[in-house]
């Protein structure tokens, strides 16, 4: 007989223990998947896990890992604020797109400046764009009681079409390009790499700063405390004088700002111009949802999860191209990791009791 008994003591162990089990499960399933798909599984697993260390272009690989980590983490930390309080903004992809559009609009509005000092203004425009797009579902929720989860998601598709509109219409650049795209922003506004020829650029540092700032707010301020109250005991939130509507507004503003910032950095550092949505948006806003849950909605956990997933992705991409293993491996590892983390979360609230104790109940436990 197996029985679940609610925990009476919560410590570090009750948080870490389920995560260790989840990590173990993920590793085992990843092994099995590679065993089934690969012809030389052992060397492939070794390559997958160590590629960023042993590649001849190690700095390039590490740059790629950190760059991907920064985008995922900055969006996911923003989303986790709302998720903690049961405010479901799943439209980060749209806010990301709108951040890019707004950053570009700001660049045009200010007369296409050609100095690096304009970069902070451009990023601020991006943040404002993300917030603006996120305020639509927030307002509909507060004013008309509309399910914010569905409206924020629908607005992703609208934002993608707005991006298509501006790149084929008013801001259309080179008509001979193989895709609909705008003219590039000025060279001096394109974020440069910290290390030559790598993807490790100053945008990663800016994202890191935003993550740290937000983590401090969540962990050490009254507002952060109110969010945690809202998460654990929704009714106490009201008694403590925190307004649920204010939680909705702030959740959307913060998550929209972070996604908008990521969109503006992406515009400046990766592409340098707006491109039609199919070639510009690559699901970062959706993957960030998974990262937020993988990190158990905690800032440290999210950064760790974003790093692990990016690390595995880089290795998996290489293994796929080198030995012809499906690139489904990386997706399968993500699936397993998320389901393992969600499936073991109950272990932080319950103890598993085996044998006679389970039948006799808590008296003997």
């Amino acid at each position, binding site marked *: 007989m197996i029985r679940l008994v609610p925990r009476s003591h919560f410590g570090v162990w009750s948080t870490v223990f389920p995560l260790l089990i989840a990590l173990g499960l993920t590793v085992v399933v990843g092994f099995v998947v590679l065993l089934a798909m690969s012809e030389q599984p052992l060397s492939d697993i070794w390559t997958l896990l160590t590629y960023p260390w042993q590649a001849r272009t190690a700095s390039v690989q590490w740059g790629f890992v950190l760059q991907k980590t920064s985008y995922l983490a900055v969006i996911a930390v923003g989303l986790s604020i709302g998720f903690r309080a049961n405010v479901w903004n*799943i439209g980060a992809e749209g806010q990301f797109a709108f951040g890019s559009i707004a950053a570009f609009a700001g660049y045009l509005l200010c007369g296409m400046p050609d100095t690096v000092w304009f970069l902070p203004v451009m990023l601020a425009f991006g943040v404002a764009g993300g917030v603006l797009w996120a305020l639509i579902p927030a307002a509909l929720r507060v004013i*008309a009681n*509309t399910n914010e989860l569905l409206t924020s998601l629908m607005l992703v598709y609208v934002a993608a079409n707005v991006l298509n*509109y501006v790149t084929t219409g008013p801001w259309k650049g080179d008509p001979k390009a193989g895709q609909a795209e705008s003219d590039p922003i000025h060279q001096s506004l394109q974020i440069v790499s910290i290390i030559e020829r790598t993807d490790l650029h100053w945008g990663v540092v800016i994202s890191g700063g935003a993550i740290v700032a937000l983590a401090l707010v969540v962990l050490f301020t009254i507002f952060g405390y109110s969010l945690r109250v809202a998460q654990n005991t929704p009714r106490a939130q009201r008694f403590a004088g925190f307004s649920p509507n204010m939680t909705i507004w702030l959740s959307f503003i913060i998550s929209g700002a972070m996604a908008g910032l990521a969109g503006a950095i992406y515009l400046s550092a990766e592409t340098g111009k707006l491109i039609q949505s199919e070639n510009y948006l690559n699901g970062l806003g959706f993957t960030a949802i998974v990262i937020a849950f993988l990190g158990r909605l905690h800032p440290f956990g999210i950064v760790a999860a974003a790093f692990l997933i990016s690390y595995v992705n880089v290795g998996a991409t290489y293994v796929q191209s080198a030995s012809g293993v499906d690139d489904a491996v990386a997706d399968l590892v993500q699936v397993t990791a998320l389901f393992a983390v969600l499936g073991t979360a109950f272990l932080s609230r319950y103890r598993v009791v085996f044998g006679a104790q389970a039948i006799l109940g808590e008296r003997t436990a």
Partner: protein
Amino acid sequence: MSLLIIQILAASMLLATPLLLAAIGELVVEKSGVINLGVEGMMLIGGLAGFIALYQLQTSICTLELDGVCFASDNSVNQLQYIGALLIAALVGAATAAVFGFLTQHFRANHIAAGLGLTVLGAGLSNSLGGNFFGVDYTAAIVAKVPALFPASWTAVPVLGPLVFGQNLLVPFSFVMLVAVWFFLSHTRAGLVVRAVGENHHSAYALGYPVILVRMLTIMFGGAMAGLAGAFIVIAQIAPKWTEGITVGKGWLALALILFATWRPGRVLLGAYIFGIVLALEPRLKAIFSNMSLELSYFLTALPYIVPVVVLVLISRNPVMIRRNAPASLGQAFEPRS
């Protein structure tokens, strides 16, 4: 003009059917107190499964062969092969949903987190598997068109031809399922148990009903219906090719339908056809305003996503109506009291 109206109606039936199928499944799931936000993911995986199954099942005769490699082939599909592919899609959808069921029911995971995860990961997984599934690149594969149920001469009959005889097998099936689910939920004992579990799982458990088993079954039913809906989109609407992210948010439209319908089957039908007409109007409006520039046409493309937002806003302004029909235990994790 009347011809145009009939065309729009026929097209909206084609477009409303997957929404209706997925929404009927999710309706039963939510009536049992579970909210599964993974409809879109299950549709994507089910759709790919149906496409792969049909590709493998179809009769293929090689017309141009050089050195044992086939360069051109003549493909055909009969109703039986089509039904086979649909069954596989439904089974794969149910299996995907079972993962969600185990996580939320047995391991007490958060419904919303597990559902969102299912959608995001279903999208990623179907993209990578579709590009290379046991050595075959399904983005390059082509399946034959599914034949109509009735002979071609019947389809030529005015009005009834395109609206009734020219339709795909799953269109009448969706109506049958709607009536069946309505009857099941409101007129059978088993349906009463499902609703009891959804209204108050503690009372249902105290009465001796297997709460977790009932919910597992409804979740798997919802998954099967979502798988069918996905396969319908891939095989009947967008055939002959499969592309990444082929459902473009139809799973979320199905979820919006449930809110619109306030959990009543009749209104699910109404909502599905309203959304279906909007989806059918979009390309025709583009044809009418054919001198409209490409960039403005993107606003018409966004229309099927703007309309649901507006509809949801209008319906949500009356909280009483939503609360009256919403299952009371919706989305709450069930932890048996001891």
